[in-house]
């Protein structure tokens, strides 16, 4: 049956009635709210998700260690954990860890101070900016550990050499991040600060530093990681602080005695301290500052 093409005419809509509604009191509404299940609550907690990942990694380690069945090459997770506890109990690991941390904190503190001075100079004058830029482009790519042989000649075997390389590894990362943070502070905020009559150190302390805090915190984190790596490597390769003895030296000693479970326990300590600093210290700072201020989602 041939169909006749007909033009579809959109009918003119009939006038519709207008609608007005009475305001509804807020308490008359039934609020639709449902508590999340326990699993959902736990899963929303990032610490819990990370625990799952860690547990999975430990399990894989344990299985691989058992399959390999060679304590000299790859001790199992359980053997490592028991070696770890044994060394914690007899006081060796805490002492070694503290030995490393003490040097680390010293180098970190000096590095931060130096970075603060450099960035303050860079903000104050153009020649300061050029100085910071030149220094960071020269020294930032230079591995701190490469300076250790020189440091050993200058400062001898001991803490001073370690602190020197630590300062080198920390300063440039922090200075670079802080400076770029200062440069990206919005023009409006800077104008607001000057409007209050702030200038010089007060302007830096009350406007620039808080406004650039996300970048500064990133710099501090990177600096911390660099310092930690440099320190362990320096202790490990050169046995610099053999007198006081740090974690790197602990690993080195046990490798020489072929006590591989202890080597793993040493590594585990390095990892644990890293996890604690990142997840407890830095995240707490973040939560109380940039997250609260809405500078980071």
């Amino acid at each position, binding site marked *: 049956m041939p169909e006749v093409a007909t033009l579809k005419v959109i009918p003119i809509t009939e006038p519709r009635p207008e609608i007005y509604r009475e305001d509804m009191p807020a308490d008359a509404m039934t609020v639709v709210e449902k508590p999340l299940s326990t699993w959902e609550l736990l899963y929303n907690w990032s610490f819990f998700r990370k625990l799952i990942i860690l547990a999975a990694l430990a399990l894989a380690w344990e299985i691989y260690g058992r399959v390999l069945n060679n304590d000299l090459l790859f001790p199992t997770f359980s053997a490592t954990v028991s070696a770890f506890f044994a060394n914690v109990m007899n006081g060796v690991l805490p002492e070694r860890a503290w030995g490393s941390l003490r040097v680390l904190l010293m180098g970190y503190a000096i590095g931060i101070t130096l970075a603060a001075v450099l960035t303050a100079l860079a903000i104050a004058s153009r020649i300061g900016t050029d100085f910071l830029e030149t220094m960071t482009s020269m020294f930032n790519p230079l591995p701190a550990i490469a300076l250790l042989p020189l440091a050993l000649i200058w400062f001898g075997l001991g803490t001073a050499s370690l602190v020197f390389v630590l300062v080198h590894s920390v300063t440039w990362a922090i200075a670079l991040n802080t400076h770029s943070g200062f440069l990206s502070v919005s023009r409006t*905020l800077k104008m*607001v600060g000057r409007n*209050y*009559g702030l200038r010089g150190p*007060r302007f830096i302390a009350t406007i620039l530093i*808080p406004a650039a805090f996300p970048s500064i915190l990133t710099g501090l984190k990177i600096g911390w990681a660099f310092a930690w790596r440099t320190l362990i490597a320096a202790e490990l390769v050169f046995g610099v602080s053999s007198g006081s003895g740090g974690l790197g030296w602990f690993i080195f000693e046990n490798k020489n005695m072929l006590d591989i479970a202890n080597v793993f326990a040493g590594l585990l300590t390095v990892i644990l301290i890293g996890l604690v600093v990142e997840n407890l210290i830095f995240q707490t700072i973040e939560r109380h500052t940039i997250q609260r201020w*809405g500078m980071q989602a």
Partner: protein
Amino acid sequence: MGSQKPLLEVSGVTLQYKTPNLLVTATYRVDFNVLEGDRFILLGPSGCGKSTLQKAVGGYITPTEGEMRLKGQVIRAPGPDRMMVFQEFDQLLPWKTVRQNVAFALTAARKLKGKEADERAMHYIEKVNLTKFADTYPHMLSGGMKQRVAIARGMAMEPDILLMDEPFAALDALTRRKMQDELLQLWADTRFTVLFVTHSIAEAIKIGNRILLLSPHPGRVKAEINSTTDPKDAALLEQRIQHMLFADEAKEIIDA
């Protein structure tokens, strides 16, 4: 009236700024006087240098020619006697709550200390109806609320003159109208002096009592007129201003 000494005297001010490859003249020999209690409007199309002119009053730009005097003193640098209210929402310090933002302005400028600063801050926060949000951080406020905090901060400093640079331009139309009414109410309460930049003719007539009309490229004074509160007169005035602005454009088209 003519005998009243002006609060702000701007005489023969030429403002220039450099871009990487040319020197741009933003305003050319602009004169105007602002009296105490004025709601003085700088009105003009974009590119007439009205914002630049206001930044110069703020002390951020030094004129290449002419001078600006506030209470007889030549303006040389930014200072808390001329509080700015910017268009941008990020003018509040994000690491301080509403109350701290207002109080910090007072302590930073060394006007008041501790408890007194806090009390003054709360007084002005109440004036802009934000008491409930005093301990909230700026990122949790709406755009209109942020501008109200900025206004409260400006007023709390009790400056000689409040400089407002299109403070409502980034707001939606409904909020803008509400904020204009609130600003007029605040003015009726405290009679502060304000220098207000806008490109909206309607806003200029509504907010201002005196309007400086600037022509673009570079900004020159085209007229200085009185505003009106009568709705009929306002409509006529709007047409007149529009005509003055468009007359130029028509001529440009004929020239081309």
